[in-house]
């Protein structure tokens, strides 16, 4: 009778020594963890293969889908001393706490966004003034879209 069967029988379990119990539990844990890893790793490979097959087929058109992703990378192209806050995911702007020209401190919450049934805060990454608000309350925004542009304050870290 296997050690696992003995573990699951209350009567036989009572007769097992501590060492046997530990051995049985360890065997279960190792088997469980390994199988779990293998199953999810196979799914990972499947996704990779799927993606590889698709991108090979779509290769001639590869230029077209690259274009919409560009605004996401527009951030570094802002003039020196300005910093954009981009939305990492699609969602809806719920509340704007700042107005253009307002001074903000690092960590001030500039806006609240609703995505996937939860609400996210966007704190100011630097101290400075709000140079431009690129979205209004209630706007639906895409992943990568810049929501607020801040003008960084020179010198002191805190306004």
């Amino acid at each position, binding site marked *: 009778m296997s050690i696992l069967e003995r573990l*699951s029988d209350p009567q036989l379990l009572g007769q097992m020594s501590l060492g046997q119990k530990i051995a049985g539990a360890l065997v*279960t844990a190792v088997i469980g963890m390994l*199988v779990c890893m293998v199953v999810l790793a196979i799914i990972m490979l499947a*996704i990779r293969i*799927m993606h590889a097959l*698709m991108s090979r087929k779509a290769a001639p058109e590869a230029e077209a889908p690259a274009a919409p*992703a560009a605004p996401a990378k527009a951030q570094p192209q802002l003039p020196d001393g300005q910093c954009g806050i981009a939305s*990492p995911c699609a969602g809806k702007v719920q509340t704007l706490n700042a107005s253009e020209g307002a001074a903000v401190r690092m960590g001030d919450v500039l806006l609240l966004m609703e995505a996937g049934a939860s609400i*996210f805060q966007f704190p100011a*990454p630097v101290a400075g003034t709000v140079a431009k608000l690129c979205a209004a309350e209630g706007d639906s925004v895409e992943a990568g879209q810049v929501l607020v542009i801040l003008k960084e304050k020179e010198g002191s870290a805190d306004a």
Partner: protein
Amino acid sequence: MLDGLVSFLGNTGIALFDWRQLVMIVIACVLLYLALVKEFEPLLLVPIAFGMLLSNLFGSTIFSEATEGSPAGLFRYFFLLDEIGILPPLIFLGVGAMTDFGPLIANPKSLLLGAGAQLGIFITFIGAILLGFNAQEAGSIAIIGGADGPTAIMTCTRMAKQILPAVAIAAYSYMALVPVIQPPVMKALTTKEERSIAMKQLREVSKKEKVLFPIVVTIVVALLVPDAIPLVGMLMLGNLFKESGLTNRLSDTASNALCNIVTILLGLAVGASAKAETFLTLQTIEIIVLGVIAFAVGSAGGVLLAKFMNLFLKKENRINPLIGSAGVSAVPMAARVSQMVGQKENPKNFLLMHAMGPNVAGVIGSAVAAGILLSLFNH
């Protein structure tokens, strides 16, 4: 006539008073307080706590078994729907219809983190065996570490019904406590530098990939862990409803109306099964302690695996280990915790979408872990 009056009085709540029921009523009221005032998972805890209240009121027959001549109590029938395995998979259908697997498809490495965070389940299994639980009970307690209500309920009803209320209540309470349990574990295991790692923006995922994903996952899981199929299969069907774009009515019903109906039935049934005789035992306390260990070890497992993977990854592809802890499912709270802890270290860092990958992988991972435990011990 006096006899009639005496027998009527004998059946009122006051005459059937028992201190243990009073304790249960107090527990139910505390849970209601947590749900309604502290807003701890109100959608789940309100039905659970109210079911508990109703079934423990003095002389309540709402959860009594059928006897000759009289049918069983109402909640016993709700419980039957859980017992024969109908309700949890239906919730998974709704979860699938609500979940966007995009971040996971864009970064398939997340799946490994989702598996790593199941470490909590298997470590807790060892702990529970050492405390004297048998394998079925130990498996049901361990699955709390999957941080997934329906999975825990499904596993526990199949293997160890007698501890279901304690397991379900522990699972849901800890899910509400994710923002309290996880951050200390995450901070203890990572350096400041690791916590500030910024990750590359995720690639865009095509619609075709999103439609194929549920089909591929179902086939892989069915081949390897058939016992996980009721949960994973329904999860993926719900997701297919959502992503196909042609079955919006079905996906709408699955994720809203159906899911809410099932939550009410399941919550009441689980709450009602918490009867004083079985709930007020030392076992319940042990289960609650093991549950928090399961959660903490699971979070640690994800973080440590992410650190381990970083040893093999090129610098620009490194993973912020904070997203590893999101591998315990608890969607989307665990991902939000990763975001919160990461942003504290580096305010420009936005980990949320990266954390959603392991987070949704964790749902698949814990269902697979449940399937493994069921196939090992459910005879």
